[in-house]
């Protein structure tokens, strides 16, 4: 037992020591490149936030960590104070103004007494041209015929502690007039409201906020590419079948289709299922005698339908006492239709009258046949008489010709 204790203590001490050495020697665990590339515009400020600590709750100071930045191609890059072009503030790397030469990969190192890791992030600084718009734009989507808002993104560093924040909005490089009823820049926020969104509202928008550093004014520009989508239409589904009672013979296979009409609505978010006595079919019939068939989605005259059949293999007497219901639900509504299976009566008048009707049919056939025969005979007699008359009529002429 004592030997085991020594072994455990020895192993744990061994595993901790190298980690301490690693931290001390600066060999940090590299956690890879951050997924996001920071795009900047030449002449404007750029801020790189340390990717590892960005989403730690609270300020980085509370974690007692030391954050350092370096550029990948210059190992010894130590940012200066706020009077220089590049400096660190609250763990973020500020480059004011950013130039094309500042493009590259930056590495943030986070360390404390027992922990150290590194992560890289890429900065790309573009010249302010139309060609660069596609790279530096943030895609945003609004829905047709609704009212929505565009958000000027990633401004928190420049708008913090500012109550007088003023954002200028442009559409396709044209300043949007505040008197315009279509667009409304909401004061004190980063939002641009767009009333009754139309297809014409698609395009590139820019939001510009003023930022001063050491008495020098700078513009911070964000570009947005607005896409207008049509809302996927959803309608209240209508169950159009089955009937309230379904006739079936015991021991036979039975399929009851539940058919739902959706109009122009989407099938994808509409659920359709069967229940037996308020229980899921799979749970109610675990042996699989009664099952739900394959869901079928189809269109007729640009109107959508869904069908899910309930399959009995076979129908048994217990099914006659079960309350089956077809249930349909989507985000707009929940509906159900009850149906019961009734035994098709074994004695039916159709079956009883079948032999009688057969006899009548045979008798009728014989009578028709006789009558038909009688009529045919009369017709034949007349024909023969006519023929005889014709022969008689032409006979003298023949004689004449012989003469």
């Amino acid at each position: 037992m004592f030997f085991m204790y020594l072994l455990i203590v020895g192993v744990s001490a061994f595993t901790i020591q190298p980690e301490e050495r690693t931290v001390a020697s600066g060999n940090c665990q590299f956690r890879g490149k951050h997924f996001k590339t920071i795009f900047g515009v030449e002449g404007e400020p750029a801020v790189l936030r340390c990717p590892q600590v960005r989403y730690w709750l609270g300020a980085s100071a509370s974690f007692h960590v030391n954050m350092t930045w370096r550029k990948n191609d210059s190992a010894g890059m130590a940012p200066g104070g706020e009077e220089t072009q590049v400096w660190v503030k609250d763990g973020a790397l500020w480059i004011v103004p950013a130039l094309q030469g500042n493009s590259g990969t930056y590495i943030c190192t986070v360390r404390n007494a027992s922990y150290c890791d590194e992560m890289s992030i890429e900065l790309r600084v573009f010249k302010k041209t139309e060609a660069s718009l596609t790279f530096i734009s943030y895609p945003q989507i609004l829905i047709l015929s609704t009212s929505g808002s565009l958000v000027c993104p990633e401004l928190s560093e420049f708008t913090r502690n500012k109550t007088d924040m003023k954002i200028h909005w442009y559409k396709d490089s044209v300043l949007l007039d505040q008197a315009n009823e279509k667009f409304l820049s909401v004061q004190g926020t980063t939002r641009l409201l767009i009333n009754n969104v139309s297809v014409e509202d698609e395009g590139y928008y820019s939001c510009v906020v003023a930022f001063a550093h050491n008495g020098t004014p700078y513009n911070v520009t964000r570009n947005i590419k607005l896409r207008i989508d049509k809302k996927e239409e959803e309608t209240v589904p209508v169950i159009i079948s089955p009937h309230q009672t379904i006739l079936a013979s015991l021991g036979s296979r039975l399929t009851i289709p539940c058919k739902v009409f959706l109009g122009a609505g989407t099938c994808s978010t509409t659920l359709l299922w069967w229940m037996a006595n308020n229980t899921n079919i799979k749970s109610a019939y675990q042996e699989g005698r009664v099952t739900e068939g394959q869901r079928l989605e189809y269109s007729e005259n640009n109107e959508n339908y869904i069908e899910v059949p309930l399959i009995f293999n076979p129908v048994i007497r217990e099914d006659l006492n079960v309350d089956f219901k077809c249930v349909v639900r989507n985000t707009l509504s929940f509906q159900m239709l009850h149906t019961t299976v009734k035994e098709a009566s074994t004695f039916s008048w159709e079956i009883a009258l079948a032999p009688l009707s057969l006899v009548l049919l045979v008798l009728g056939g014989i009578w028709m046949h006789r009558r038909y025969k009688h009529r045919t005979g009369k017709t034949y007699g007349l024909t023969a008489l006519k023929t005889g008359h014709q022969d008689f009529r032409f006979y003298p002429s023949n004689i004449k010709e012989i003469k």
Partner: protein
Amino acid sequence: MAKVPDVFEDLKNCYSENEEYSSDADQLSLNQKSFYDASYDTLHEDHGGKLRSLGTSEASKMSQLTFKESVVVLAANGKVLKKRRLSFDQFITSEDLEAIVNDAEEEPIQPRLAPNNFQSSIKYSFNKVIKKQCTLSDTSSQGLIRDTSGQYLMAAALQDTNQAVKFDMGAYITDEDSLLPVTLRISETRLFLSAQNKDEPVLLKEMPETPKAIQDETNLLFFWESHGTKNYFKSVAQPKLFIATKQDQLVHMATGLPSNTDFQILENKP
């Protein structure tokens, strides 16, 4: 016809400190902060004519009531005193109400749903995947991405929408006529969003496969509510909490503001 007396008149002033009474909107609001936090809220809904609760102001305002279903009499603390089935188009008289209150033999109505703590008996069965490869974006037009640890989600303004996490939404059905329960799985992975406590980050939980039925692990289920272009995901395990985003925080569970709880669902477009 005799005027219907207000059977709650004597009860109005009897509620204790830990109970609240309100007759606002013709409804009895009951909030009993007991140890078990029993919820009787469901009694006040009109479940397709199955059950109808008699509100205070409703009873006092109307002199002639024709009820086609049950009448429920409630004490101010939420306890169901009596229930009585009335015949169609039968007028309620003061004698009827007296009989209802004094009849000791009638059994109390049980709440339709158990309190949240005891709802694990509800079974949710998988129906179908209703959305594939869709992305969620919050009110600040931020997409959801995985954080550097890969365990959590965070919201970020993206210049490339392909960087956003894509979700498959699986719909579940239940015997209850409830909202629409869904799971959110990161497309082409086995990672499902799992709700935690208030202000705690939403976890990405690895499952061997899409659960065919969920009974105990309701953390994986969210009631999907859609209002126009706004979509909300309310935890089935903790129905007061929603999936939410907040500036510089991981995607977490929140009751509402200052966190953003509404999302836009963006369909996968080629």
